[in-house]
């Protein structure tokens, strides 16, 4: 009979996520709207009902008033959503990386499935892992919120807190000297031997390279780039000691590792007798990549404004 009113109530009902009594609420709204139409406009017809509906509020807003006080995830758990997602994602990405390294798949029912994949597929999987982990943590926190008991969730100290250390540790002069010396040595080795990736230095001043000459030179420059980025960042931190600098540094170095993993220049490993250097090389590279990724994520968690982190005392 009142098509617009029925449509309106159906819309309100769609947003009305209450455990029980939804029909009761809708019946009361219907009764109210019809009475108001009749009192304010003389009759409860389609035209008058439409006028009342126009001023009653949009269906979502109407439904939300009934849902005040109900939460999907408690505001106090917002930090946990981001912090826990970071932790779960780090573990997920590390497992995926190990699977990539050992050319295998992993299935931990019912939460983790990592198929055997190439490096490119691994990279493309990371954003999906993040979304999945965010959802998983969100689901967990939803159940914590719905359980009204006071559940104390653990909060690892290294995730920071109200009294965050807003600056990284002060850089040391010794570190800077070491960094510059390291860069100089790498540069000298590149200029002298055209590589820093060698297995042994044979007398008199000869080396046994790890890779074929083109690849050796290319990857040696990338190693130099990493060392230079690290040293420059350290130097900048003497003037501006911030996690933003560390974040940028680790992001750049991570890009270098990704270039290396992608094998932009075809590398052939030179064998030393019966010993295959390939696995030592790959292992070292894997450890360095994981460490850089960890440092990158750590900086990501620390990137936040300096103001507004002090806890405010509550009133009455």
């Amino acid at each position, binding site marked *: 009979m009142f098509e617009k009113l029925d449509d309106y109530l159906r819309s309100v009902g769609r947003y009305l996520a209450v455990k029980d*009594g939804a029909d*009761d*609420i809708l*019946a*009361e*709204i219907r*009764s*109210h709207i*019809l*009475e*108001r139409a*009749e*009192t304010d406009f003389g009759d409860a017809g389609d035209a008058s009902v439409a006028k009342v509906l126009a001023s*009653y*509020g949009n269906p979502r*807003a*109407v439904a939300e*008033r*009934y849902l*005040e*006080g109900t939460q999907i995830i408690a505001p106090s758990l917002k930090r946990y959503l981001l912090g826990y997602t970071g932790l779960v994602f780090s573990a997920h990405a590390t497992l995926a990386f190990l699977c990539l390294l050992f050319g295998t798949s992993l299935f931990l029912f019912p939460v983790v499935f990592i198929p055997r994949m190439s490096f490119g597929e691994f990279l493309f999987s990371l954003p999906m892992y993040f979304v999945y982990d965010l959802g998983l943590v969100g689901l967990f926190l939803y159940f914590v919120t719905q359980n009204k008991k006071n559940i104390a969730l653990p909060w690892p100290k290294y995730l920071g807190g109200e009294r965050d250390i807003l600056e990284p540790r002060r850089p040391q002069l010794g570190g800077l000297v070491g960094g510059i010396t390291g860069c100089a040595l790498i540069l000298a080795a590149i200029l002298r031997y055209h590589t820093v990736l060698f297995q042994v230095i044979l007398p008199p001043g000869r080396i046994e390279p790890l890779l074929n000459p083109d690849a050796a030179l290319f990857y040696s420059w990338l190693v130099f780039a990493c060392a230079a980025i690290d040293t420059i960042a350290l130097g900048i931190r003497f003037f501006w000691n911030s996690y933003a600098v560390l974040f940028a540094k680790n992001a750049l170095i991570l890009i270098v590792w990704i270039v290396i993993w992608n094998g932009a220049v075809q590398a052939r490993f030179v064998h030393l007798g019966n010993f295959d250097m390939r696995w030592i090389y790959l292992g070292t590279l894997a450890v360095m990549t994981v460490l850089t990724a960890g440092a990158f994520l750590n900086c990501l968690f620390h990137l936040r404004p300096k103001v507004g982190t002090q806890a405010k005392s509550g009133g009455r």
Partner: protein
Amino acid sequence: MNDIDLSNFETEMNRGFQQILVLAILETRLYGYLMVKHLESAGYPVEENTLYPLLRRLEKNGLVKSEWELAPDRPKKFYLITERGKIVREKLLGIWADQNKALKAVLEGSAHV
């Protein structure tokens, strides 16, 4: 100074006051639309979207009770304060009076500073 939007502050202040007001008006058995009209004529217009969810919360806490009545034209849901609601209302009125007293003292005190 005139362009300050007070709506958020007003909403916060109204939240508690409307509970007392509804508990006070429900000494008489009323349904929603009549309550809106009564409050409007008392100089305190309340939106339906505010009133009905408030009534639902009060009922959930056992402060008011409701029943549907099949009136000749259409069904209406009537509300009435419960005994528990009356006790809570008295306590809330006490809190409100204390708050007014404290505010008055602070304002008078600050006037003499």
